[in-house]
């Protein structure tokens, strides 16, 4: 009987191994990437491993969707769901709707690993979402944003 349980444990472990490391999969906002990533009017970016290392990240995904009211509404809805998992939130709300938001999420795996969602609806009507995972903290993120702004 013990042997039977040992075998079952091995099978259960084998089933769980592939599920490890899918931290971003628990986020609703990922549906926006799947739905709009390949559509006209969208720009979706995912960085290579080599590029990620230079920014101290393990995952970078961003999407910008221009002039799509449906996408904006969906993004706001998804952000509203995902922010429940955030430990730190900064957001601007206009007429009850999130216009921009910065969220630091609860780390799912390693203790030193941070997860951020950056979200903004521009005045021109485009929506941008950036998802970052990595050992960088919010100060590193600000530095990176300053670098990008000045370039």
């Amino acid at each position, binding site marked *: 009987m013990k042997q*039977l349980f040992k*075998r079952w444990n091995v*099978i259960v472990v*084998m*089933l769980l*191994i*592939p*599920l490890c490391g899918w931290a971003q999969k628990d986020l609703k906002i990922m549906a926006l990437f799947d739905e709009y*990533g*390949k*559509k*006209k*009017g*969208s*720009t*979706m*970016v*995912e*960085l*290579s*491993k*080599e*590029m990620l290392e230079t920014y101290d990240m393990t*995952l*970078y995904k*961003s*999407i*910008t969707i221009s002039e799509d009211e449906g996408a904006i509404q969906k993004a706001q809805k998804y952000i509203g769901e995902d922010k429940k998992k955030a*430990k*730190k*939130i*900064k*957001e601007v709300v206009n007429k009850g709707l999130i216009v*921009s938001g*910065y969220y*630091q999420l609860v780390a799912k795996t390693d203790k030193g690993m941070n997860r951020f969602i*950056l*979200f*903004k609806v*521009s005045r021109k009507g*485009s929506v*941008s*979402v*950036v998802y970052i995972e990595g050992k960088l903290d*919010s*100060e590193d*993120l*600000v530095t*990176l*944003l*300053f670098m*990008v*702004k000045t*370039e």
Partner: protein
Amino acid sequence: MKTIEELLDKYFEGATSCAEEQQLKDYFSQEKEIPSHLQAYREMFVSLALLSDVKRKKEPIMIMTPVTTTIRRHRIFMQAAASVAILFCLSIGGGMYYHSKDAQKGYVIINGERSTDKNLIISCMENSMAAVTDYPEDVLFLDGEYQE
């Protein structure tokens, strides 16, 4: 005694019942004196009686058979479960490998068109980062700060 002789005749004619055969075996297996003209049959019936005993002793092995079948069933079930687990792992693992291989290269998709040009990827990444904030310092989360 005549009965035994009659039974022997019947036995060699192949007309005895199981009970009559048992009677013969019992008779020749007993330790008491057997008439000399019947001694020749004694060895044969004692041997037959021993053979029946051996057969009877083998019967418990027949009872064990279902246990063996159960173990075999368990083994088949475990093998099937292991196969399903391996297939599941391979499919998920394959998907993840494909995804990771895809992500390892890095890419940008603009209006449905995919590119792996490094400069274009960096340029689009910078545009996205610039688009999410007008004031980078807004992103700074101070310790203990929680704003909504």
